């Protein structure tokens, strides 16, 4: 079941280009049994709701924009809890009606019971979502970087397929995109089994706000299994393509972006003195001596050794701007990952096992079996061609990963709550009480 309807290309264009709505409740149908909310989450929701009430009351007497902001952030939880409690109350009512003397009334209550139950499950899910902190980059557009893994040309050909797949997917969904970089490798002039060009590196920008959240689950190694065009014996080869999703700054909000870029606290801040800028020119004299059309730029962020080169555009200033854009995005993502890593080490070890690290394969595209499998959500879809043209099958996979991500984030919240509760339960000053001491 998909909550985001599939829209054809022409309709998509008519649709106002607003925020991306991504499915959040894919799993609902399959897990439509109320397992009851984790008590620890319910407790957290109650605490937040109490805080919400208190803050709302204080706002009435003395307005404070900071308080108002906090109220905005947590009102989602308060609302979700209220709805859940209302539903629980009506479920209790129905249950008591089942004891009624009146047969007709009992029947009515029985009829209602199932739908109320389903509703309850949905509301529990909503509350869990509301409690799960939003990813700090969630509302941003994103850059999708595609880089073939080490090894033969197959990976480079498949890199081209992956690039086209996301491009087509965005076109189908009506998302605005822009090719920031598309570099094919020099050494071969041949084509892949599907007519692909050997890709060196490509960067696709998806300009819609919220694209980061919608695509972040695509990060990781995508594995391809197929018979290369050059393979005479018909043996299937396995190669891989890395897909990395980075946050990118919305472009039209330039003043905001600029202040963000100048703010050393920001993830996107880069000290220009730490970047080496080079123009890459062919050997020999430049200036008036030659009229080359290329104006390649290479940036090196010295502290991290991150380099970005850009030569796709005729305009030097565009190459420059895009190179900076990509560099900022990569650095911001690195900083974020470092913090996430730190947070993980503080959490229970059970969870860190579920963590996908950079080198892990997340998905397999198997041509011979006409199959695409996501190794995290466990979803298998057939009709590989539809996946590769960014069709409904790809949407299904992406949605399953979103659900998986949400679940993982929820588990992290539970783990954090558990750790906090343990720490609180531990005798003050002593370290022996809780499972782990802070």
């Amino acid at each position, binding site marked *: 079941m998909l909550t985001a309807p599939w829209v054809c290309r022409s309709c998509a264009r008519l649709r106002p280009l607003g925020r991306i709505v991504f499915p959040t409740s894919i799993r609902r149908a399959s897990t439509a049994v109320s397992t009851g909310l984790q008590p620890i989450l319910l407790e957290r929701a109650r605490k937040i709701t109490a805080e919400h009430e208190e803050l709302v009351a204080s706002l009435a007497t003395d307005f404070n924009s900071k308080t108002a902001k906090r109220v905005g952030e947590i009102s989602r939880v308060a609302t979700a809890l209220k709805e859940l409690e209302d539903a629980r109350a009506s479920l209790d009512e129905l249950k008591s009606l089942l004891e009624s003397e009146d047969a007709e009334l009992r029947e009515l209550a029985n009829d209602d019971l199932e739908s109320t139950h389903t509703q309850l499950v949905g509301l529990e899910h909503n509350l869990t979502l509301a409690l799960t902190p939003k990813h700090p980059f969630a509302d941003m557009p994103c850059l999708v970087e595609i880089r073939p893994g080490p090894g033969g040309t197959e990976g480079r050909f498949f890199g081209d397929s992956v690039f086209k797949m996301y491009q087509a997917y965005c076109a189908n969904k009506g998302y605005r995109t822009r090719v920031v970089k598309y*570099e*094919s490798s*020099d050494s*071969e*002039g*041949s*084509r892949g089994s599907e007519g692909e*060009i050997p890709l060196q590196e490509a960067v696709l920008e998806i300009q819609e706000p919220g694209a980061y959240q919608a695509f972040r689950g695509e990060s990781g190694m995508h594995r391809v299994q197929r018979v290369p065009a050059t393979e005479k014996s018909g043996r299937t080869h396995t190669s891989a393509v890395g897909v990395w999703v980075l946050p990118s700054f919305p472009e039209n909000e330039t003043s905001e972006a600029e202040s963000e870029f100048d703010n050393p606290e920001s993830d996107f801040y880069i000290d*220009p*003195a730490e*970047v*080496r*800028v*080079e*123009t890459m*020119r062919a050997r*020999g*004299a*430049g*200036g*008036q*001596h*030659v*009229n*080359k*059309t*290329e*104006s390649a730029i290479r940036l090196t962020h010295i502290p991290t050794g991150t380099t970005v080169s850009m*030569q*796709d*555009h*005729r*305009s*030097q*200033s*565009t190459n420059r701007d895009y190179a900076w854009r990509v560099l900022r995005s990569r650095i911001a993502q690195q900083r974020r990952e470092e913090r996430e890593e730190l947070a993980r080490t503080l959490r229970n070890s059970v969870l860190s096992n579920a963590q996908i690290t950079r080198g892990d394969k997340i998905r397999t595209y198997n041509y011979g079996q006409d199959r695409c499998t996501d190794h995290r959500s466990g979803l298998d879809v057939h009709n590989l061609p539809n996946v590769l043209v960014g069709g409904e099958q790809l949407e299904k996979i992406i949605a399953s990963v979103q659900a998986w991500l949400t679940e993982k984030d929820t588990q992290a919240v539970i783990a954090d709550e558990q750790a906090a509760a343990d720490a609180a339960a531990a005798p003050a000053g002593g370290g022996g009480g809780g499972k782990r001491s802070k």
Partner: protein
Amino acid sequence: MPRLRPSLFWRAGQISPLAAKLLRACRDLPSSLNELRWIREHLSLSPLTTSVNAENPKALLRLQQLCERRAKGVPLQYVLGNQPFGNLEIKCRPGVLIPRPETEAYTVELARIILAERRSRTQPSSSGEGTQQTSMNVVDFCSGSGCIALQLYSSLQPTCPSLRVLGLDISPKAISLARENLRHNIHLNKLPHHNTQQSTHFRQADLFSEDHIEKTLTDQKWDVMISNPPYISHKFFAQQTSRSVRNYEPKLALVPGRHLQKHPDHLGMGARYNCAPEDVFYARLLEIAKTLKPRRILLEVGDEEQAVRVVTIVCQDAMLSRLYTDVEIWRDEPHPAFQRRRIGSSGVGGESEGGPGRGRQIRIRGSGEGRSVYLCQGDE
């Protein structure tokens, strides 16, 4: 020029016959593919050829034509008729030099420096000094397509309420193209319309004519003087320029004419300069600088050696060396400040003959080949 391997043509042909064709001019596969894409993009911007595919034979024909011309060696900028420069689109036409990326890099950097200084001067004093109307006058000698003048105008215009930019060139073709570029970028909304306080003008003038220069420019104060003059020697023109430059771009724009040195009676000034023939424009420009005394001067040069020769002219001149205390050589990529390097205190040329540059601190900024000489007056 080394011959390209046939296998390269074959590989390009596997991707597209047009890419193979472009190889003859581009010399490598990535450039051919890039240029092919740019030609397609260019066509897609014109209403008649928006989609370049089998359903549009007209567009396909046009694509063939453009690739054919490019393959013959015609510079892509002449084939497509323009070149991006900073945030502008500069029209290009045979007879006028194509703007270079190195020129773009230092022009943008100069604008950045000027704006940074203006900002630091206006910020601290909220009353008095900061709010005072400071006008900004910029002169671009040898303006060609107008790229430098127009880009400076574009960058400075938002922060300089009173701004005059003047471009001068001897070539009528260049002047009319520069004027067209001004109109074109206003039309594209990349430049604002003129108003009484802000304007850019182009005028035909011979740099070596006192009537054209000293007699007409001295009635106002000039803040910035910039020039990308012809600087290639006859020898280097034959040996170091690419074929597409030699065959298609105007020699007038690249090589200082022999007459400027050989004929002492040429406008009465030719023999005055005791310098290499390819440096004669710098000698003249620095002579003009002594009259106009602009706060900043930026001159493009062909390589680091020529940069050193220009610096030497400055150091040898009592007035110039007193006026311009800040002397820098900028490389192709001038920006990163941390790459500034101090050449020993013996200064440029000092080592070999204990020469005239002794004791001057010359800073060299950035990476790449020496590309321009920057002079700035000290604060009074």
